[in-house]
């Protein structure tokens, strides 16, 4: 091998190494950014990882299966989140059963209503301090550390999903802090979801044999919720507002 060839070979070798070193992190980051999308199925997230925008949590509520007078989901929510469960006008209700009667046909329905976890949440837009926020995975929450209790989000919410804590609180759950003077609402049981769990209302509904609520990743085409939404007609509450809700309803006209 003559010296020129040797030097050329060395040059090519180091150039390739340099190029590799430059490109590799990019490829790695690309993989990272597309994790969960590239394989078409959501990879379960470890609780130590941050919530990812590749996931969008949602619920599908089948109103044909929701039993009138049943309050399993409401009671489960209260138990899980340490809410007193009383229903004075100043008490918090994260989820409530609304009884409906079709004004033309008289047909009766019963549906649970909670925070709809909008993609375009009005509560987040109006919050002066940014305490009302949407997580990367679509869950809308109140950061109680920065909530000043102005209640503007309650004025803005189209679903009456939010409650104001009107009194000093006791009996908080370790995972669900709550206190006087802040606004609160359904968290989609975020403390359970982050650890791979399911919201308590969904579990309670299944346990009661109704199975009216499906929880899952709307972005994952293989998930049960995504399949159902592809197959049956579903509606979003106040669809005219285009808030793009994470909670969908089956059995009421959209």
């Amino acid at each position, binding site marked *: 091998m003559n010296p020129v060839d040797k030097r050329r070979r060395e040059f090519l070798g180091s150039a390739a190494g340099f190029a590799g070193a430059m490109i590799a992190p990019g490829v790695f980051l690309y993989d990272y950014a597309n994790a969960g999308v590239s394989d078409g199925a959501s990879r379960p997230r470890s609780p130590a990882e941050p919530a990812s925008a590749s996931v969008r949590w949602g619920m599908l509520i089948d109103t044909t299966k929701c039993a009138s007078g049943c309050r399993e989901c409401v009671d489960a929510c209260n138990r899980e989140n340490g809410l007193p469960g009383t229903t004075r006008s100043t008490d918090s209700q994260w989820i409530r059963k609304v009884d409906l009667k079709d004004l033309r046909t008289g047909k009766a329905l019963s549906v649970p209503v909670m925070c709809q976890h909008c993609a375009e949440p009005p509560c*987040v837009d109006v919050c002066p301090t940014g305490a009302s926020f949407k997580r990367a995975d679509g869950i809308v929450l109140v950061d109680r550390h920065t909530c*000043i209790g102005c209640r503007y989000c309650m004025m803005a919410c189209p679903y009456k999903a939010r409650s104001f804590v009107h009194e000093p609180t006791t009996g908080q759950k370790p995972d669900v802090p709550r206190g006087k003077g802040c606004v609160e609402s359904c968290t989609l049981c975020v403390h359970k979801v982050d650890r791979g769990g399911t919201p308590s209302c969904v579990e309670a509904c299944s346990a009661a044999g109704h199975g009216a609520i499906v929880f899952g990743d709307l972005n994952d085409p293989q998930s049960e919720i995504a399949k159902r939404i592809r197959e049956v007609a579903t509606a979003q509450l106040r669809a005219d507002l285009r808030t793009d809700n994470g909670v969908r309803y089956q059995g009421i006209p959209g």
Partner: protein
Amino acid sequence: MSALASSSSARRAFWMLLAAGSLVLAVALGAAHYMEEHGHAVTGMNNQVVWGLPHVFAIFLIVAASGALNVASVGSVFGETAYKPLAPLSVLTTVALLAGGLMVLVLDLGRPERLVVAATHYNFRSIFAWNMILYNGLFAICALYLWSLLERRMGALTGTVGLAAFAWRIILTTGTGSIFGFLVSRQAYASGVIAPLFIALSLAWGLAAFYLAQCGLARLAGQEAWDEALHARVRRLLGIFVIAALYFVVVHHMTNLYWAKQAAFERFILVSGTPYPALLWGGYVVLGTAVPLLLLFHPRLSGPRATAAASVLVSLGALAFLYVFIIGGQAWPLEIFPGYEASSSFHDGRVDGYSPSLPEFLLGLGGLAASFLIGLAGARALPILAPPKVAMPAAAPAK
């Protein structure tokens, strides 16, 4: 020497009023502390009516604040020199009303001790956050404006600062109106007309408040409150503003009446929803608009006393209007399921009752007291009023 300290009786009256105002303020602060300790459960507010009586007072004061600045603007921006002597009091009234209103707003927060959070965390998509900047900016502009009016060497700035103040106050009231106008989900609000409506209301309420401030302070100082020619102009201006405000209120309701989906809500506000129609028609339309117009324009009635009475009525009408607008607007349930009759444990589909509690009312009064105190102390500390025993300059001469 301030005109308010020109005689021993004036001095005594000043201190008596200061003491009376402080007492009301102290009671209000006590009420706020009580609500803070016990939570909003001790107010009439609940999860349906989330903004109550304190907001009625606060928004009245804030809207009137920006309107009170117009007297100064008429002088500095529109070159009506007859108004120039009134400009310092106009600016002071603005500062006083704004501070009183913001005090009520802050003390009604769920976590008032976290005000610093509101100052350090801004969500720039929120009109509420923008308003905080606008309110603080108005204080700054007013300080500069007052300086330019009272300090001869700063006089050259008056025109520029006056123009800035005028523009700022229009934007500010647009912002205040938009707090409601941007609420897409509520039938009572969600309208672009609310911003100009609030500007029109501010012109009327602000001028009424200013008129009362001028009368009260002049009387305290033993001065003639109004030069006759100037009074005639202010009186006419107030009448025009009251009509302009009524015009926008009518437009707002007419628009709603044209939309089938708003019919039930309008029926509630205008006809059936006790006590709101009574407050709107009796309080705002008759007492707050028709009677003042009669007092202002009837040739046999018009005079400084009649104008003062009209100003009081316009202010009371304002509170009635805001009660209907804010509380009536929230009492009407959200229509989440159109075409269905809804009912639940959370007041779905049901008109909600709201009865204000005493502490809320006291807090609202405290806002008025705070404004009163700032105006009174400001007029004593600053050369706001004409020097003692000299009548107001004549209206006519232009430089």
